[in-house]
């Protein structure tokens, strides 16, 4: 079985299990403020790290290239509170332009 199939099946099984557990857990178990704080922070650190790794690395190296232009457009769009699809599309356009100029 290919790595892709293992990843698809494993992720799907765990994704549903996690969702279903949530619907089955007595809420008092998660009332602990320490657990609540950690759970609130986890998506923030994971998603931020994912952005960094996706944006400036290639395999095991740090690589600054056309993707940075796309991210600069996205961050600018966020400062102006533009809608989500505009942010994504703007990043794609910015990155594509930089790529065509050889970066």
């Amino acid at each position: 079985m290919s790595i892709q199939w293992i990843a698809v099946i494993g992720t799907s099984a765990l994704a549903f299990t996690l969702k279903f557990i949530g619907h089955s857990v007595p809420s008092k178990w998660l009332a602990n403020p320490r657990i609540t704080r950690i759970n609130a922070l986890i998506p923030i650190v994971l998603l931020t790290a994912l952005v960094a790794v996706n944006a400036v690395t290639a395999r095991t190296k740090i690589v600054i290239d056309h993707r940075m232009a796309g991210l600069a457009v996205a961050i600018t769009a966020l400062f102006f509170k533009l809608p989500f699809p505009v942010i994504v599309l703007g990043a794609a356009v910015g990155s594509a332009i930089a790529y065509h100029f050889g970066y």
Partner: protein
Amino acid sequence: MSVKRDSFSLSFAVGAYGTAFGAASVTAHFSVLQTCLLSLLTFSGASQFAVIGVVGAGGSALSAIATASLLGTRNALYGVRMAPILKVRGLKRVVAAQVTIDESTAIATAQSDEADQVTGFWHTGFGVFVFWNIFTLLGALGAKAIGNPSAWGLDAAVPAAFIGLVWPRLVDTKTRLIAGAAIALSLALVPFTPAGVPIITTALLAIIVGWRA
């Protein structure tokens, strides 16, 4: 009435982004079938992008599953929050669990009336599910015609989407500092660890900071 309208517009906007997932997934060497199964069965945008991101970057299946599952843990917390509102059992609870995501929980918890909370959850859950899967297929099929994804900026669109999702949460100095630390830690680990590990490791930052204050 307005809860249904809000559910529809959010569902369509988020669903349309499935195009980017479909295209990115095929670009990361997942087949069209595997791409569509991820959207149908995993049905959690961040986790799906994490899987294809880690595997596409040469990571192992285990680190892809682990990273995606860590990202999916918040859905468990949403389930905890939604269960007493929905009050469903059996097969209905299984369906409710599958459509428990950021959007359905966000719309539901924004309503003051309990009936609207239930309506908002189901309409958004089903709405995003339908649009997300249709657009995933379109993106996956379209990617074959696209060619080099860098030429179209697709490799920047994915991290940009994540920034868009995280940005509204960076409301105070503490959160911004933790996000900065996550960037530094993950990038510092990139040259020395297998793909996926730099991201998972940042969960330690959340545990350390959340534990203390």
